[in-house]
């Protein structure tokens, strides 16, 4: 009797729920604590503050401002022409950079994968711009793009007098796009190379038996098998492209006129030059909404493709 009671007592005690044994898990909170606390402050509280601010006409100098409801959003959507210009410019930039980098990185990785000699050297060289601060790269490219710079000297060889790349409205954004492709392509080459290394050679052997040529191999084996890598690349690029700031700030400051003013530059100006932090917050949420919808569409398309 007593033995059994003891056993019964011991049984449930051993499987006592975790939360009743603080000695076991308190260390978990202590270890995770600092990181979690920082992330709560700089992510969770930040998000709440930002959303809250977007409903106020907050002025940092006056340390306050009146509640305006959806006023900031209304102003951006219906009164601020610059908002639509900046959104258009940002979409233009993304439309150039995302497919541009994806295609170039894929092709370069294909070539780099096939190459037997100097693979590592090529990869290192292509990767170099990714570890150079964009500020520095922008400063170099400002000179390359200058009226007498390298690009125009090259065109001069063919008797063409080149434009002022960063100062003429129709050509300024394409110039920024070309420079940005040059900067980022190497990073994505490395990602594609890792993806290519993961494709089992059997697939290609089977295709060769069936008499497929190189292009058919690429189109029907490589591209479909790298679909997840491509999804990662395009989503990452799109999120980054919609927040483009540094190269524009250094190379054109949004000009000429507002031809290269991006959303992030507009947010920076409203928030930190005109000190309209409420309005800038509303702009950042509108940008977030655009990014969110785009990424959702990208995921949707990839999933639909996978079902087919």
């Amino acid at each position, binding site marked *: 009797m007593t033995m059994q009671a003891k056993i019964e007592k011991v049984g449930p005690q051993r499987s006592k729920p975790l939360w009743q044994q603080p000695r076991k898990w308190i260390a978990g909170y202590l270890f995770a604590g600092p990181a979690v606390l920082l992330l709560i402050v700089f992510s969770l509280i930040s998000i709440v503050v930002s959303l809250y601010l977007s409903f106020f006409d907050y002025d940092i100098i006056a340390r306050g401002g009146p509640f305006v409801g959806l006023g900031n959003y209304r102003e951006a959507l219906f009164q601020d022409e610059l908002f639509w210009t900046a959104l258009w410019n940002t979409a233009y930039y993304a439309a150039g950079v995302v497919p541009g980098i994806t295609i170039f990185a894929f092709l370069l990785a294909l070539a780099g994968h096939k190459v037997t000699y100097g693979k590592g050297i090529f990869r290192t060289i292509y990767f170099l711009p990714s570890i150079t601060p964009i500020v520095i790269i922008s400063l170099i490219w400002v000179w390359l793009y200058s009226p007498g710079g390298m690009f125009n000297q090259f065109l001069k060889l063919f008797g063409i007098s080149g434009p002022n790349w960063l100062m003429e409205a129709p050509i300024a954004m394409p110039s920024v796009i070309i420079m940005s492709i040059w900067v980022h392509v190497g990073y994505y080459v490395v990602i594609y190379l890792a993806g290519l290394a993961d494709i089992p050679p059997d697939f290609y052997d089977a295709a060769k038996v069936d008499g497929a040529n190189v292009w058919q191999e690429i189109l029907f084996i490589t591209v479909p098998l790298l679909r997840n890598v491509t999804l990662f690349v395009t989503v990452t690029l799109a999120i980054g492209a919609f927040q483009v700031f540094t190269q524009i700030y250094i190379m054109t400051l949004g000009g000429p006129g507002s031809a290269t003013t991006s959303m992030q530059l507009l*947010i920076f100006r409203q928030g930190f030059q005109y000190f309209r932090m409420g309005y800038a917050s509303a702009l950042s949420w509108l940008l977030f909404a655009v990014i969110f919808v785009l990424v959702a569409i990208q995921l949707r398309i990839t999933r639909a493709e996978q079902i087919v």
Partner: protein
Amino acid sequence: MSQQSLTHVSPSTAAQPAQRRGAANFHLGTVTMYFLMIVLALAMLFPYYYLMVNAFKGTRGFAADPYSLIPKTFTLESILYAWDTGQISIYLGNSTIYATIVVVVQTFISSLAAYAFARIQFPGRNLLFMGILATMMLPYSVLLIPTYLIIWGLGLANTISGVVLPGFASAYGIFMLRQFFLNIPMELEDAARIDGASRLRIYFQIILPLAQPALVTIAIFTFIGEWSSFIWPLVVLSNNKLYPITVGIALFRGEHSMYYDRVFAASLLATLPLLFVFFVGQRYIIGGISLTGLKG
């Protein structure tokens, strides 16, 4: 260059005898490929060459011939000017301080959290971890203004602490290190626990030494990211004595746009530390990126 590639290619075709129809065809394809890759590699390297050439032309030499690729003059004048009068040395010092602080603190804090999420059972663990992953989805754009207001509210605007504090926690770092810790055999830790070692001792004496490659990878990425960061220091600092190199060089360029040789010299000084880190840690960088891509 292309001739060099030709001599390089021939052994490779010899090693793969007639696998494809038409060895000559294959040969031509390979040569074209090498040729294109070399041309593109030169296009990638060109701006760096340009940077070097112009940094050493000197103010007079540069003014006399600002666009030539083969310099007629060589002098350290622009470099010395940028370093000293241009205060680039101060900005480089600041960047080194900021990047070092963030690397050390962030790697430590992230690895502590990663250890907890990988190895310790505690109530709400999975929920917290999902929350941390969710913060990776937040665009920087939305966080910039509230982060500034929080730092400003804490009285840290325009201070060193204000620059580095938001960089201390990294969801990405926690995620990567947790993945690594999960792969360390549990037996090692169990044995230490039976011997009566505390969690903290296990973390310092077993986990950290084993996780060294992952820690180095995270540290290098953080260093490069901090060194290159622009918009945050631009926003949070107003005293130019505290500027990191990125913001400092933008200011320097504004003051010396008439003497672009000095801007090139300053740019060269700003790039060298990162090139050094890159060549020392290249193995870790490439490995780390490959991992990210595959996880996605």
